[in-house]
């Protein structure tokens, strides 16, 4: 993945110089290890700022919402699916975009790495599928595939689904069982399920980082911020917290691409994908739908088909 950056810079520079786009949305190096920041590049000399490595987990489609400029955007598999979702939902026009596709081999799970070491991680470098982690008094080499974000390790759409330029050859897609953990929860009795989610959310501080990082959450006023009417309690009571996560997941039903931005943004490391993935699984099993794969197909929740399952209606 490291080799991509020269190509990314070269394509970006070309696009800006030829005035095909007004800006490029990409990543620049963050101030802390494993935290690359999104950045907007508007002039050819700033193209050098752009980077690409295994810490680009944030979903850049989040920065497209309602933009009027012509934009070049760097997109890995999940970003490209969210771009498609944005186009379907009229949040951006396809004509405005030049999509620079990046075949992806997964992003590093920074929560996991941070918890693996006692000291502070000061530097993370990668080479040939290995990650070197350096701190004040330790240094360790790990295999990248062992420390992938959980959503990346079960990703089956690593290659962008739409693109105008491609920075490298497409990578091989994984053949994995995506829903093993969801099935585990499904098999639990109700009481156990309840307790599982209680545990899961017990550390939530309702900072809404998950919502802010999510490319699907673009409502001008989010239901949790609304106070007339107030849909949901704003306290950190466990029921209010659960209602927030539950409703947010529902708003993403049939739209979530499992990009993992919510989990990555969470400061306390809650695996809130356990909510969205159940909905994703249901969508796939009942409607054969995976979000963001095609520009020509309407999502299952805004179409009707006679064969839609309806046996839950008595």
């Amino acid at each position, binding site marked *: 993945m490291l080799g991509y950056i020269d190509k990314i810079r070269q394509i970006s520079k070309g696009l800006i110089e030829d005035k095909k786009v007004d800006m490029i949305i990409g990543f620049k190096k963050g101030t802390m290890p494993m935290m690359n920041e999104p950045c907007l590049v508007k002039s050819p000399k700033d193209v050098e700022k752009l980077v690409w490595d295994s810490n680009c987990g944030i979903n850049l489609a989040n920065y497209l919402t309602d933009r009027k400029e012509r934009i070049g955007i760097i997109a890995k598999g999940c970003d490209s699916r969210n771009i498609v979702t944005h186009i379907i939902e009229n949040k951006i026009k396809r004509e405005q975009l030049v999509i620079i596709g990046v075949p992806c081999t997964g992003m590093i799970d920074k929560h996991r790495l941070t918890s693996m070491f006692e000291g502070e991680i000061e530097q993370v470098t990668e080479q040939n599928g290995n990650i070197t982690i350096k701190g004040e008094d330790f240094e360790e080499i790990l295999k990248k595939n062992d420390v992938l974000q959980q959503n990346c390790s079960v990703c089956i759409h690593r290659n962008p689904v739409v693109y105008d330029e491609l920075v490298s050859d497409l990578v091989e897609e994984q053949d994995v069982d995506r829903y093993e953990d969801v099935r585990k*929860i*499904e098999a639990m009795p*109700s*009481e*156990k*399920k*309840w*307790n*599982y*989610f209680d545990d899961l959310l017990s550390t939530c501080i309702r900072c809404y980082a998950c919502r802010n990082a999510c490319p699907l959450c673009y409502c001008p006023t989010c239901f949790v911020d609304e106070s007339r009417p107030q849909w949901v*309690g704003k*306290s950190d*009571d466990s*029921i*209010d917290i*659960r209602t927030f996560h*539950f409703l947010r997941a529902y708003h993403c039903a049939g739209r979530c691409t499992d990009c993992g931005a919510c989990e990555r943004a969470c400061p306390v490391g809650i695996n809130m994908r356990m*909510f969205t993935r*159940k909905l994703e699984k249901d969508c796939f099993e009942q409607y054969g739908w995976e979000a963001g794969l095609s520009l020509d197909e309407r999502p299952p929740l805004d179409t009707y088909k006679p064969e839609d399952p309806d046996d*839950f*209606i*008595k």
Partner: protein
Amino acid sequence: MEHMGIEPGRIHFSWVSSAESTKFVQVVNEVTEAVKALGPNNHFITKEAKVA
């Protein structure tokens, strides 16, 4: 909802036309019976905030 830990049988969906009064009565009876059988749901009771 069931995935999150609400018991199966507590939530019901039905489609009743305004002309189907008998079906409406039947559905209401079925729902109340099923929910009574499950007993009270204590999950959503909010405890009063603790004051230090």
